[in-house]
């Protein structure tokens, strides 16, 4: 009797010979099948549609397109650099505790976040209408139309409005740094600027990089606004070509292709920048 029980128990706890059947994700398989079917339909539509794929291939590396791509990248870099410099400056003014500086910062964000980027671009480009010359009287003076080229107008319009958004990102980064860090930096005799540069900003960067990466990617596409003031970025050049040869969709696809390439490369870059500024920090993923 006793022996029988122990034999039954032995069999029940013996699992070495059992086969493991993995969980079947039926829902996932169905969803994947549906998506694949839809994609196939889409590919077929494009293949059968009135798209001349040889034109797409031909213009993908056309000099005017590559030049436009180059100008898009330059404008993204210039406007974003201006935006980040202004953003850091405005954020520091905002938290400086100096009432004059912090009011200026609040006013800046209010004004430049309050008007569409396209409108600001047009304002800069048409500045000559109200100020025919700019400069400091007696010292130097330029004709506004000479200075306010499409490049300069686009950079100012995009960069200055970007600065208003970026300053809020920078400010949240600065606020994320523990007050003990400010005190430790002061205690070793750092001046305000050195403290920001060496201690506070490097830590704030960890918080700031993901949203700024987002903004850079947004800026790549926002530069297409500059086409309205005749800046030769990629969309503008694609339009010029299709005005001549009427291959509208083909050229738009060419431009989309390049935007996608640039955004992909930037996303990869962002990954490495995040890793750099995350040094010394415990990974969040490991703690979830």
């Amino acid at each position: 009797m006793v022996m029988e029980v122990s034999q039954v128990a032995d069999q029940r706890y013996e699992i070495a010979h059992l086969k493991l059947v993995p969980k079947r994700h039926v829902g996932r398989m169905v969803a994947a099948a549906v998506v694949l079917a839809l994609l196939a339909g889409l590919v077929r539509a494009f293949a059968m549609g009135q798209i001349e794929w040889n034109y797409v291939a031909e213009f993908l590396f056309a000099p005017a397109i590559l030049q436009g791509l180059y100008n898009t990248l330059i404008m993204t870099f210039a406007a974003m650099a201006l935006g980040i410099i202004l953003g850091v400056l405005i954020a520091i003014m905002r938290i400086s505790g100096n009432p004059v500086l912090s009011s200026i910062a609040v006013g800046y964000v209010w004004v430049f976040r309050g008007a569409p980027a396209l409108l600001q671009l047009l304002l800069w480009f048409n500045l000559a209408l109200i100020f025919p010359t700019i400069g400091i009287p007696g010292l130097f003076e330029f004709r506004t139309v000479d200075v306010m080229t499409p490049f300069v107008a686009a950079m100012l319009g995009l960069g200055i409005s970007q600065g208003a958004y970026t300053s809020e990102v920078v400010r949240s980064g600065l606020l994320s740094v523990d007050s003990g860090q400010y005190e430790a930096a002061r205690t070793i005799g750092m001046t305000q600027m050195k403290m920001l540069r060496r201690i506070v900003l490097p830590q704030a960067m960890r918080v700031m990089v993901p949203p700024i990466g987002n903004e850079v990617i947004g800026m790549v596409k926002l530069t297409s606004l500059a086409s309205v003031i005749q800046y030769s970025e990629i969309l503008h050049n694609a339009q010029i070509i299709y005005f001549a040869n009427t291959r509208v969709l083909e050229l738009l696809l060419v431009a989309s292709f390049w935007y996608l390439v640039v955004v992909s490369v930037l996303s990869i870059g962002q990954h490495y920048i995040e890793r750099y500024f995350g040094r010394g920090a415990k990974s969040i993923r490991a703690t979830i």
Partner: protein
Amino acid sequence: MSNDILVKAVEVTKNFGSFRALDAASLEVKKGEVCCIIGPSGSGKSTFLRCINLLERMDGGAIWVNGELIGYRRDGDHLHEISDAEISRQRRRIGMVFQRFNLFPHMTALENIIEGPVQVLNEPMAEARDRAMALLDRVGLADKAGHYPSELSGGQQQRVAIARALGMRPDLILFDEPTSALDPELVQEVLDVMKDLASSGMTMIVVTHELGFARNVANTVAFMEAGKMEEVGPASQVLSMPKSTRTAEFIKAVHN
């Protein structure tokens, strides 16, 4: 004899709004002495320390460190507030160790110690590095030089923080409850480093609840209550035969 005095605080007063956190608090600490400040929570101990290195601006009274008036420049019978750059210069000679360590998390232990000497004192990197390694060795952490603070225990972080303060070659180090955030078994390693520091002649003002440390290491003990220095005297006298009944009650309460 008076040039033996390193820290002299005279009737320091500090208000937060209508609340008086420091009420005419006076204290003298001689060169090479250890002074422990004890007292109940909220009595103004941290605020007093923070006035000494200008993390907090006092509303009345004056503090001299090494004969130099802190936070002001005296011009005849006028006191001028000094510039931010001057404040930074005065802070260099006053180290501070915090309850929560406040190491720079994006720098290794070694980089934490090098930062001040290189960035603030403009010391050459090679020299700063050698000194930092020697300091890490002194606090028993030579093998942790390349570790980030997040990879160190609380006790190790606090020892790095002490080494960081020493890296600035301070005249004086302020400790604000340096062991209160530590697990009980890590307290002693930090107290040992501080004791070692005291016997090497460093002037220290230590806010602490470790009465044993105060008894063994401190030269003077100050008992604070409600923003006032209720009783200041030789460590053995204040801790064993306090004159003030409030001091006696506090010490009795801590021992229980």
